[in-house]
């Protein structure tokens, strides 16, 4: 089988070499054929099942449009999006993170959808999603979904360890996790570079990743507050076998959790669906609680993450692209998306649909203490070559925290000053 295929490829190579110039894969559309729109969505932002259903439904409603979805890896995504919006045949729709959309909006490479805002019901959009994509009256990013992290836990392992109530303070959380972390069971699987989780702990202490001083931004990981946050992270990270030198995507932490011997991970509630998709035996054994704060009065601070949908200026099919965005960001599919993925839908008016969802309920409590990354258009540059991740690994592997924090803060300062 393999041999035949190989021979065929060699043959094809010879023949196709001369045709290579034409094999670029862009579609030239003649009017009587269906238009194909290219859509980029991020890895694991929705389940395969949801995506298939949505695309099938969209293609039924729009028989003249075919949808070609490309799932993008988070690794190196900034570079790919820049390339795409700067190219002459960009994809028609791109999902971009809410911390990154400001930069692309400022570049002039995105279509202004300001005149569609009222049609899309923009008055009800969640500000945390709508604002980064807006410059004055121009709206470049259309809110897609929001989410913040909670603790996803294995109820069976909690029961086995005799823990009946999810912890509500940091002390109780550490105590419970220490109890859970025995034998084959990992108390928590926390990879060394989950910088969103670290950011939460830093905010809890009253610190931040970077602070603004007049017109300039300075990295602030070396403040006593931020160092205390890192200290807590290290304490928690030690209560499991999370690798110190990688993030939650490498390996995907839902895969690790679905093996069944991990008691907790810090993830968006949608992870619960993906875990069950990977290992159906864990159905009904997954619980959620808000990341505990320093006291029981206030949940732990969390990063309010989310995505926008954008249409590049050079998109080949802007009208079809808009139809697609309007459908995915419209109320019907936003409700389905919220229920399916436990995401916060893009409009405040839709929040009710999550009332019966335990994951979303935990998320909603945490959302009261939601934070954003430093509000600089250059923040994307920090994430593109993230010094916070290096810093975390260094501290976890024994470097002097203060010294490592100073170096990392300098990197952040330099990235935020645009060079």
């Amino acid at each position, binding site marked *: 089988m393999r041999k035949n295929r190989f021979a065929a490829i*060699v043959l094809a*190579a010879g023949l196709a*070499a001369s045709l*290579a110039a034409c094999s*670029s*894969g862009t579609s030239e559309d003649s009017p009587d054929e269906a238009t194909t729109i290219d859509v980029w969505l991020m890895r694991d932002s929705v389940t395969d099942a949801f995506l298939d259903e949505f695309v099938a439904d969209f293609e039924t409603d729009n028989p003249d449009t075919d949808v070609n979805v*490309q799932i993008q890896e988070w690794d190196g995504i900034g570079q790919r999006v820049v390339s795409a919006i700067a190219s002459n045949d*960009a994809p028609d729709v791109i999902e971009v993170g809410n911390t990154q959309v400001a930069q692309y909006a400022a570049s002039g490479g995105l279509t202004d959808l300001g005149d569609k805002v009222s049609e899309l019901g923009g008055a009800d959009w969640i500000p945390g999603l709508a604002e980064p994509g807006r410059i004055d009256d121009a709206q470049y990013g259309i809110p897609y979904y929001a989410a913040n992290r909670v603790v996803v836990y294995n109820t069976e392992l909690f029961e086995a360890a005799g823990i009946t109530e999810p912890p509500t303070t940091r002390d109780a959380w550490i105590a419970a996790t220490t109890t859970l972390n025995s034998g084959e069971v990992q108390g928590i699987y926390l990879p060394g570079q989950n910088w969103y989780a670290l950011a939460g702990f830093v905010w809890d202490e009253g610190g931040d990743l970077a602070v603004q001083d007049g017109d300039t931004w300075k990295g602030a990981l070396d403040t006593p507050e931020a160092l205390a946050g890192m200290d807590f992270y290290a304490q928690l990270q030690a209560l499991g076998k999370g690798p110190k030198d990688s993030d939650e995507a490498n390996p*995907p932490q839902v*895969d690790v959790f679905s093996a069944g011997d991990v008691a907790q991970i810090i993830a968006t509630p949608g992870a619960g669906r993906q875990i069950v998709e990977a290992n159906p035996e864990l159905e009904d054994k997954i619980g959620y609680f808000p990341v505990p704060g320093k006291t029981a009065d206030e949940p732990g601070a969390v990063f309010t993450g989310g995505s926008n949908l954008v249409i590049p200026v050079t998109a080949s099919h802007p009208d079809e692209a808009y139809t697609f965005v309007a459908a995915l960001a419209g109320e019907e599919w936003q409700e389905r998306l919220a229920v399916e993925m436990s995401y916060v839908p893009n409009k405040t008016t839709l929040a009710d649909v999550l009332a019966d969802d335990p994951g979303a309920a935990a998320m909603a409590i945490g959302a009261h203490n939601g934070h954003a990354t430093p509000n600089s258009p250059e923040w994307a540059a920090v994430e593109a070559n993230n010094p916070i991740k290096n810093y975390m690994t260094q501290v976890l592997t024994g470097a002097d925290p203060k010294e490592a924090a100073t170096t990392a803060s300098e990197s952040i300062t330099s990235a935020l000053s645009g060079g």
Partner: protein
Amino acid sequence: MTPRPWTRTALGVAAVITLLMSVFPVYWMVTTALKPTPDIQSETPQLWPSTLTLDHFATAFAADGFWTFWRNSLLVTVGSVLIALVVAALAAFAVARLRWAGRRAFVLVVFAAQMAPWEALLIPMYVVMRDAGALDHLATLLVVYVVITLPFTVLTLRGFLEAIPVELEEAARVDGCSHLTAFRRIVFPLLAPGLLSTSLFGFITAWNEFAFANTLLISHQDQRTLPVWLSSFGNTFGTDWGATMAASTLFMLPVLLVFAVLQNRVTGGLTAGAVKG
């Protein structure tokens, strides 16, 4: 000279150490690819695999897009080698056999181009190709590879051509052949070894090239070539080191074959050419 026994032993030990240091990483790649996962993820590594399995190769073959990336790599490699050969042969003939104003300047330019610091040109190349709307096309990569290998190919073929006596060719022309016919009938067969070695060089260059493939084919993931795909193995295989090593082994195989063919030329060439510098 007859070495004393202890000298001989010392030499033997040094030889074995050199051999181990050089081939161990290759050995470790191949054996990891053949070990079952529990043996790979073991606190005490097995230096000699106890059980062998082809599972990891199966995983690599089944990986998303594996065949696409093979096809892409083969396309650009074979395509660029063939085009470079044809283009270079024409130029080499003009340089070695014809006299024309500007010949010396041309050779100097080709010579300079052969030394071009391509690594420093990644960003301007990206901007230029973007302006030309040529990003994310395999054909763009193919053209870049042609130009990377072209100067070397021109100079080498010129060397071979000059070594072929002009009289042979002239004899053919006396018999009524045109320039090109003479080239085809007489020169080409004698040129074959030169064509072979330059195409092998082109093959290795294009097959291994990473930096431009990683810069010029960014957005369309199904346009990637094997080196780019392999460099992001974390996305494909996560921490499955067995599959990652299997993919690396498969990627290396063609080059190893090429080197096996090339080896006489390599060692022979070294003594004949480089030493005289």
